[in-house]
């Protein structure tokens, strides 16, 4: 009895498929593929080799870069904004994982001419919540609760040659910054936020171990690409390349010197602020060749 039902169902589906096949029309909108590249001085990034010198004169190498970008929007020639749905608003990129370097958006984009792209480097306050990602590799980016919770915006790991001629590791990690009791700097231009930790974690900050934290600073920033022009056509695929110019993290407007900031900056808001302010010209988007 069951098999008869299967048979009827299968035949029906088959006939329906046969009937509709010839009537298909080109789907409205086009697809976007974003290829991610990392470069230093206009050449593809080479890891694990002391090939590079930053603006401060530090001879350095990069071992890996892992980062988030989110909330990408496309701006058409008339100034209208196209926003991707929630499922396509956060992306993780990892120089060690090829699959993360090609993003095929599933959402179709209205056909037309586009002249701008915006996205967030890292994650904004609403998205940067602890436990958002439970699966690796994204979950490995978690930012400790004590330091504000959520996730690293970026881990850029490498080594540099210090003034003693020794190879010293650096972890250029960007995420939520902290204002400590001993900190007197003026952070007026920054958005202060609550810690993103679970409620029951409140109060586990032992002042005897580390200075008390007065506030947290969300260091994410918006990237505006307005020197681009590309078209999207119905039923077609558009390929763009998003390039991270690694050396620009360490220059313009601030000259970032590893000898000054040392190997770790997750608890040095001044260093993270400098890195994020340098981020304005780190990214470039262009039509893929």
């Amino acid at each position, binding site marked *: 009895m*069951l*098999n008869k039902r*299967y*048979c009827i169902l*299968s*035949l029906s589906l*088959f006939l329906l498929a*046969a009937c509709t096949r010839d009537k298909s029309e080109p789907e409205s909108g086009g697809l976007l593929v974003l290829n991610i590249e990392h470069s230093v001085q206009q050449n593809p990034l080479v890891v*694990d080799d002391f090939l590079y010198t930053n603006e401060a004169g530090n001879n350095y190498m990069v*071992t890996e870069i892992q980062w988030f970008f989110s909330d990408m929007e496309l701006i058409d020639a008339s100034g209208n904004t196209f926003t991707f749905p929630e499922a396509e608003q956060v992306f993780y990129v990892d120089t060690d994982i090829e699959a993360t370097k090609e993003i095929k958006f599933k959402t179709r984009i209205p056909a037309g001419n586009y002249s701008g792209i915006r996205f967030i480097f890292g994650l904004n306050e609403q998205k940067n919540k*602890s*436990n958002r990602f*439970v*699966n*690796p590799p994204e*979950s*490995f980016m*978690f*930012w*400790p*609760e*004590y*330091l504000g919770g959520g*996730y690293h915006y970026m881990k850029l*790991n*490498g*080594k540099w040659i*210090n003034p003693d001629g*020794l*190879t*010293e*590791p*650096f*972890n250029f*990690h960007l995420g939520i910054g902290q204002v400590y009791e001993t900190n007197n700097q003026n952070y007026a231009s920054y958005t202060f936020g609550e810690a993103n930790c*679970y*409620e*029951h*974690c409140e109060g*586990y*900050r*032992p002042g*005897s*171990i*580390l200075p008390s934290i007065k506030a947290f600073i969300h260091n994410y920033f918006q990237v505006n690409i307005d020197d681009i022009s590309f078209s999207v056509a119905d039923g077609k695929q558009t390929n763009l390349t998003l390039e991270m110019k690694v050396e620009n993290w360490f220059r313009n407007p601030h000259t970032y010197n590893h000898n000054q900031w*040392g*190997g*770790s*900056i*997750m*608890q040095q808001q001044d260093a993270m602020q400098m890195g994020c302010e340098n981020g304005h010209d780190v990214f470039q988007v262009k039509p893929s060749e």
Partner: protein
Amino acid sequence: MNRYFLFPGLIIIMLLSACRDKKSAEVPEPTPYEINIPFAFPSILNIPEDNPMTEEGVQLGRYLFYDGRLSGRTHPDSLMTCATCHIQANNFEAGIDHPVFEGGIVHGITGKTTHHVMLPLTNLVWNRSGYGWSGFIYPENDQPFYRNLEDFVWLAVIAEDELAGDTTRVKELFQEIDGYPDLFLKAFGSSTVTFKNIQRAIAQFVRTLISANSRFDKYLRGELQLTQSELNGYVLFTTEEGADCFHCHGGGGNPLFTTHLFYNNGKDTIFNDPLDRYSVTGNPMHRGAYKAPTLRNIALSGPYMHDGRFATLDEVIEFYSHHVKLSPQVDPLMHHVLRGGIQLTTQEKADLKAFILTLQDDEFLVNPDFGPPPLFPDQK
């Protein structure tokens, strides 16, 4: 025209399907085994498509895991199985105070010691990036016999420094043991014992060994508060200017307490182990790199490091605090290396250890589902 050929094809498929239904009525389908994902744990599991978890498969795997005849031998002096070394009470390791494996250094049935010390079998259902200290068994491996937990079972049975068995002899032996063929029938639809199904069953059982109810888990779930010393230790664990353990060993956002990735943690400056991470990747920067093991139940997992050079947690903390060595291969995450380590005070070391001990899951260590069965299928 193709449509005309498809109609008879569909009918044949229906008939074949009907035949299969009749056969499956004789051997009940095994019951799917559900893994409940603990709070904040990954939802993606390492369960291969050709070995889905079933209640019957797990039950069979548990018998095999604890049955000394897995070595293919029946003489009382020649029995050896997974549980000979992987002891539940010791986080499925031998334990530093094992009466036979002195200092926790294990050897196989022939007396030959293993190349590296043991790794725990805890929470391996979430390991998707390679097994063993070097990660030489991994899903994308070109060599089809070195891809997943099932392959590790095969390797353990045949390896000279483990069971030194013969797969044909093992499967033939279990074919003759009362009760086992019926268990294979229930788990895999055939009473013919194959070594492949032995591998599958043991791997299924090992994937059930989940530790997720430590004091820290209860703290994360808001069920209890840790002591001040433990909380201090947690802060040290998860801060770069503290002990900076979290980048490799996880924390609240990565409750596996490992990334399952590979790091040179600054133990040495000369690297001559032929089975380090370099042996897998061929990248010279990976010399001296090994898997970061999970810190769950770590107090029971000594000796520590790939070669078992440290006997106690105190020695490990002392190493990370004051004895980390600089080499070209040391991982960038060891950013305290030029100071020799994280420079913890005596109190900080005590606090850090107190936190690490909150990762011990006493329930896991005595859970009867993970322990030896009261009787084997032949009632022995």
